[in-house]
């Protein structure tokens, strides 16, 4: 009698468990509602099938409009990172006589890269399925319309994906201007950036993010490198190229004897805060949908920035006995750089650790390392982006978790903390390729530009300031 009771209870429990399970399987319900299935089971009335199809379309449309709304906002946020974010950040760090010149370089890229992107850029980054670079299939944006491109983002119009990726292509070369600041010709900058975008950015973006790319983690790459939002594509390539530019161009006249303090940390401060906000579009937007992964990346981004600001300030406090405003904002930017490749793979605690390490490491890079070697990376594009991007990409291999993003398939270990330590090796391959491509590409491009438009302004122009000599304007006419 007692055993009978247990059996009855078990059966009841099983039934109760099975009921909600069955209810939670809409795919089965949907497949029954497909026309082919309804043909084989005529008992489902036609009207019901039509209604279900209609519902299906409505659900897809609702998801698409939610995702599209977030992605359009994200695209705008990423553009805001270049102008006004980066322009103010860099603008404040140069001397007063060069403020317009550095701002104009970033702004010119907003226009120049956009045109190049429409002509061939988007296609070179995302067309075809080559290992190293895209093709010309989508040149002049052929076939890029409101229909999604299922290879990359199945729920948003390809136009949205295209314009979102464009904003990354704008900010990446703009970061390099930090190293060449206060001494590079405007004509030389325009030519350099055009070539750099085509020969360094496009192949790197395709290798990491493009279908079939050599380093692509989700679409069949040889060395799957985890790079959620551009640690290697954006920050390592631009940072390493910045270092090569600084070495090739040589020091600014008077460096390091003559004082060259930032002319307005207020501008830099405002710019850094705009960068921080814009970075939510950069990292959380890289989920390419308005979903849980976007929230995870959003949180990781914020935590990384905060911990890095603290890391830099702590290092500075120990060294100089005080924390500076420039240190705090530089630290935050370093943390944002380092969390970029990791944002969609790591949890909040790992984000705090990555940020803190990056803050301290980049402080060491821009203070000690730079003075050890004596190169003039004027605004520390290498010290922050090259160094922060590299350490972030490597730490991504350590901290990536399958619970955050099962990129290699359900339950398959992703990073070192999951037990998949060889991922750190894959990250290293990705980083080395980015370093190599950036260094070699930039050296060749610099030679070409040097022989055509020339790279450096004359010493006289440099002393007088680039605003007057290159653009015929001054940033501040306070007495007029």
């Amino acid at each position, binding site marked *: 009698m007692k055993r009978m009771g247990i059996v009855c209870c078990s059966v009841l429990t099983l039934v109760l468990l099975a009921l909600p399970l069955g209810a939670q399987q809409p795919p089965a319900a949907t497949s029954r509602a497909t026309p082919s299935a309804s043909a084989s089971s005529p008992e489902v009335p036609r009207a019901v099938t039509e209604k279900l199809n209609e519902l299906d379309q409505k659900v897809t449309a609702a998801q698409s409009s939610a995702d599209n709304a977030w992605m359009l906002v994200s695209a705008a946020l990423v553009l805001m990172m270049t102008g006004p974010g980066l322009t103010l950040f860099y603008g404040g760090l140069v001397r007063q006589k060069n403020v317009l010149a550095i701002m104009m370089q970033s702004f010119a890229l907003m226009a120049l890269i956009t045109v190049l992107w429409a002509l061939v850029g988007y296609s070179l980054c995302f067309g075809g399925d080559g290992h190293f670079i895209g093709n010309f299939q989508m040149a002049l944006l052929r076939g890029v319309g409101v229909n999604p491109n299922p290879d990359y983002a199945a729920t948003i119009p390809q136009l949205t994906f295209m314009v979102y990726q464009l904003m990354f292509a704008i900010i990446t070369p703009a970061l390099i201007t930090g190293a060449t600041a206060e001494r590079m010709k405007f004509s030389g900058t325009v030519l350099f950036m055009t070539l750099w975008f085509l020969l360094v950015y496009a192949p790197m973006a395709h290798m990491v993010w493009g279908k079939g790319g050599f380093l692509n983690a989700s679409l069949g790459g040889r060395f799957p490198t985890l790079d959620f939002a551009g640690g290697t594509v954006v920050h390592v390539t631009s940072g390493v190229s910045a270092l090569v530019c600084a070495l090739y161009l040589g020091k600014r006249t008077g460096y*390091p004897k003559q*004082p060259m*303090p*930032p002319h307005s940390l207020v501008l830099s401060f405002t710019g850094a805060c705009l960068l921080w906000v814009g970075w939510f579009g950069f990292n959380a937007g890289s989920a390419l949908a308005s979903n849980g992964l976007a929230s995870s990346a959003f949180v990781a981004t914020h935590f990384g920035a905060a911990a890095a600001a603290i890391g830099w300030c702590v290092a500075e406090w120990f*060294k*100089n006995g005080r924390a*500076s405003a*420039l*240190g705090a904002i*530089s630290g935050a930017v370093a943390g944002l750089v380092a969390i970029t490749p990791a944002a969609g793979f790591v949890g909040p605690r790992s984000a705090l650790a990555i940020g803190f390490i990056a803050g301290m490491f980049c*402080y060491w890079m*821009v*203070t*000690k390392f*730079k*003075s050890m070697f004596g190169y003039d990376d004027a605004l*520390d594009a290498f010290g922050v982006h090259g160094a922060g991007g590299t350490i972030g990409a490597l730490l991504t291999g350590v901290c990536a978790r399958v619970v955050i993003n099962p990129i290699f398939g359900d339950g398959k270990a992703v990073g070192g903390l999951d037990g998949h330590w060889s991922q750190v090796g894959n990250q290293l391959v990705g980083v080395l390729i980015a370093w190599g491509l950036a260094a070699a590409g930039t050296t060749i491009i610099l030679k070409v530009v040097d022989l055509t438009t020339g790279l450096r302004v004359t010493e006289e122009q440099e002393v007088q300031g680039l605003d007057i000599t290159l653009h015929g304007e001054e940033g501040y006419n306070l007495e007029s």
Partner: protein
Amino acid sequence: MMKIEAIIQPSRFESVKDALLEIGIEGMTVTEVRGHGRQKGHTEVYRGREYTVDLLPKVKLELVLPDQLVNRAVDAILKSAKTGKIGDGKIFLSRVEEAIRIRNEERGESAL
């Protein structure tokens, strides 16, 4: 007639001006200047690069006064500009030969 040139801390300027107005002094010329005496400068650090800033901002007041007002004016400046710390500035006195009001060509003390 005497000319008073007082170089003071910018932060004390408002109270110096008020103290002078209180004793009936109506005109003065004020310039923002940079300089240092024994105070020397300070260091600023930007991303690990140290800069010594040795010229510090100061305010220079110039007043030309009839002789009987000079001592009271100097006292007023001394009282209101003093913080007791190094860098408070200096007062220089010199004799003035002539003063001419441009509007009506008045001369001497009545031009002040």
